[in-house]
């Protein structure tokens, strides 16, 4: 079992390493195709490989393109043959299966934190909500991860706090998948909103998602990580969860909407906690691996830190 896991992990990392070369190839082919379409001369850097690449382009079939379209964002045009094993390889099967999430907290959580975690709207498919005080749960993170893997859980979410205020969120995709580390700011829990009674119960329908302004590569990566925490919704669902990126701070909002006066008027009612997420690390491994390779690390103390927009313009 351990060896098997190690082998799988190595496979995963190997395929990740290959994708770099693959992506480069794809880019070259795309450029050649574009040049051919527009009638412009082929870029001089590609002159040597042009013959071989054109042969490959001609043999690429439409079916391959259509097959993989659903895996990626709408950024790709339909005419391109998209490489299959790019970064979001881990999420290839996620669209077929429904996500199973384990939510847990750091050691000895305070009651406000437990309240916060309880009302996180990810509890649609929560199989285990274990705020770390339950006796059955393991104490060590590696054991937790092992237990989750054996139960076929897709994602593990850890929430950290500081004196009652939640301040950290770790989202780990389980079969060797990537881990995203977020810092939480400006947290407003449901508790803080005084008129709780008017809010009523939280709707349990599968929500629609809005991911706004994730335009860079890392932004898209974060978008997929957050996206695959939720299952496929019904088209007429009235519940909306928004992740809006403003200046590298992702605002989380949870609304329920109604259309009282016909399709034009929309009445938004805010429900659920509200906070800002700040991504500071993405690792190519699960939470328990300390030496996992970093895909992205936030660098706030370099001189150009103010100008950097890592998640999207």
């Amino acid at each position, binding site marked *: 079992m351990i060896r098997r896991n190690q082998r799988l992990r190595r496979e995963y990392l190997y395929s990740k390493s290959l994708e770099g070369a693959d992506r480069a190839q794809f880019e070259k082919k795309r450029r050649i195709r574009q040049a051919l379409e527009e009638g412009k001369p082929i870029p001089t850097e590609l002159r040597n490989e042009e013959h071989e690449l054109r042969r490959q382009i001609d043999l690429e079939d439409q079916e391959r393109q259509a097959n993989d379209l659903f895996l990626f964002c709408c950024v790709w045009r339909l005419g391109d043959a998209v490489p299959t094993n790019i970064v979001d390889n881990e999420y290839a099967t996620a669209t077929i299966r429904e996500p199973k999430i384990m939510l847990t907290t750091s050691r000895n959580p305070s009651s406000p934190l437990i309240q916060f975690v309880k009302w996180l709207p990810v509890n649609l498919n929560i199989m285990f909500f274990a705020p770390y005080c339950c006796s059955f749960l393991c104490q060590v993170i590696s054991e937790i991860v092992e237990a989750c893997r054996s139960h076929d859980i897709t994602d593990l979410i850890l929430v950290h706090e500081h004196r009652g205020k939640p301040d950290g969120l770790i989202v780990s995709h389980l079969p060797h998948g990537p881990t995203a580390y977020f810092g939480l700011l400006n947290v407003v829990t449901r508790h803080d909103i005084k008129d709780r009674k008017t809010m009523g119960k939280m709707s349990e329908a599968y929500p629609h998602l809005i991911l706004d302004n994730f335009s860079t590569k890392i932004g898209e990566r974060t978008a997929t990580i957050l*996206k695959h925490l939720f299952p496929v919704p019904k088209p007429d669902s009235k519940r909306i969860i928004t992740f809006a990126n403003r200046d590298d701070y992702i605002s989380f909002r949870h609304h329920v909407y109604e259309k009282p006066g016909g399709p034009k008027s929309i009445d*938004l009612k805010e429900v659920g906690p509200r906070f800002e997420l700040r991504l500071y690390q993405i690792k190519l491994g699960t939470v328990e691996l300390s030496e996992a390779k970093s895909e992205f690390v936030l660098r706030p103390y370099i001189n150009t*830190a103010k100008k950097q927009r890592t998640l999207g313009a």
Partner: protein
Amino acid sequence: MDATAAADKGEAALKLLEYADPSHFLSPSADLVTAARAASQHIYSSLVPLSPAQPPSTLLTDPAFDAEQIWSQIELLARPLLPHLRRQLRRLEQQPPSQPQATLPLPVEKPADSEEEEEEDGQGSELDELKELEETDDEEELSDDEEDEEEEEEELDQRAHKGLEDQFLKIGEMAEFLDKGDEEEYGGGANRGEEKKATKNWMAESDDEGDEDRDEEGDEDLEDFEDDDEDGEGEDGGGIMYKDFFEKSHNRPAKKRDGSTKKVQFKEDTHTMELDGSENDDGNVEEEQGLSTHEKEQLKARAKIEQMEKAALESSAWTMQGEVTASSRPINSALEVDLDFEHNVRPAPVITEEVTASLEDMIKKRIAEGHFDDVEKPSLLPSKAPKEHKELDESKSKKGLAELYEDDYAQKAGIAPAPLAISDELKQQANTLFKRICLKLDALSHFHFAPKPVIEDMSVQANVPALAMEEIAPVAVSDAAMLAPEEVFEGKGDVKEEGELTQAERKRRRANKKRRYAASHKERPAKLQKD
């Protein structure tokens, strides 16, 4: 007589001031004030005739006038008078010491040690006088004494140089000129011979400084006097001879007041003492005053440099020491210092109403468009072939069991074709389609002729003559599909029509027919009878 009466009054006032207890001066008292005014008036009037300019003849000392106003009047008199008197004094000094002029009281002239008390007294009185009149009359007294002295010196000079002088040469002026030259060369006369140097130093100094410094100098002189008195008493003044000083001085008239000569003497004393190498602040001061401006600036710069070097050698404050931990600086000192540094990190966004409103607008827009970023369901492409479901037909089979066995055997033997299953049907259809396509492609693409493949098909054949078919179909159509002649007519040999038959042949045919009919009819009536 009025003048003498006034003079007497003045003298009396002076005497009163002189003998008053110093402690009385600390608190204002009316009679002291009147006495002071009277005294100053007396002195003023005595000096008026001597002044080269023409000042007002009396000093106005009404009670209405305050100290400032009286003083300004005195200054009016004193200002033009002082330089005049100084010149006279210098001339007097130049006189050879043989001139008998002043008759100073001996205790003052003698070396300090023996006559300390008297000197002290004299000095004390002089000091008192000085202090008393400081408010009103510092300079005036000094000038008074100087003036007297100079007067005498002038007389002496005139007597000595009458033979030499004429309208062009004035010994006094020559002496002045020479003095000035000396100053320029030697910078204040520190290197010259004792007596003359000393006196000249003093004189030069007094002359050099401008009018503005007069007052300062007067004060300085007074200070010097005070210091000097003590110094003069304490030290022996080695190398000073009686005749160096007092041959000149005992020419002066006895009526000279003690203070004046004393003053002169002490000044000279101090100078000689300085020259002997005694450290004297005043001497240093005077030496400094003799330095050029560049040297003065250099001294200042050097002092500043020393100060800065000293500061640099010391350890600096904690704020200037680079990385400082809490243990190396005083408690709470970081709170007092105004620390300011640039933050490179963008601060967390403050969620205001506008931000929330903008977010909600965006959300509403997206909802209206229906543009969500949900996880999309994948379009399922068949990865395996669909399973073949064998349909079980539950109706009773029409064929009997023997027939079923017969069919199986026929299949195995290959006589009858196998019964088609559902998938087989599809396959057959696919096969026929494919064969048709291949035939067409071959006909189009290959030059050599390949005949149409035999597709065994149960189909109705139209018995159309070949000619009609051949007209439409291409060459490739064979007439194998048409009916063969045996299929058209089955029979033997001589085939004759009705018209061609003979009688015998007709009869024969009829007979055959009857026979056949009779054979088949034998069976029939049996059946009919049964029914």
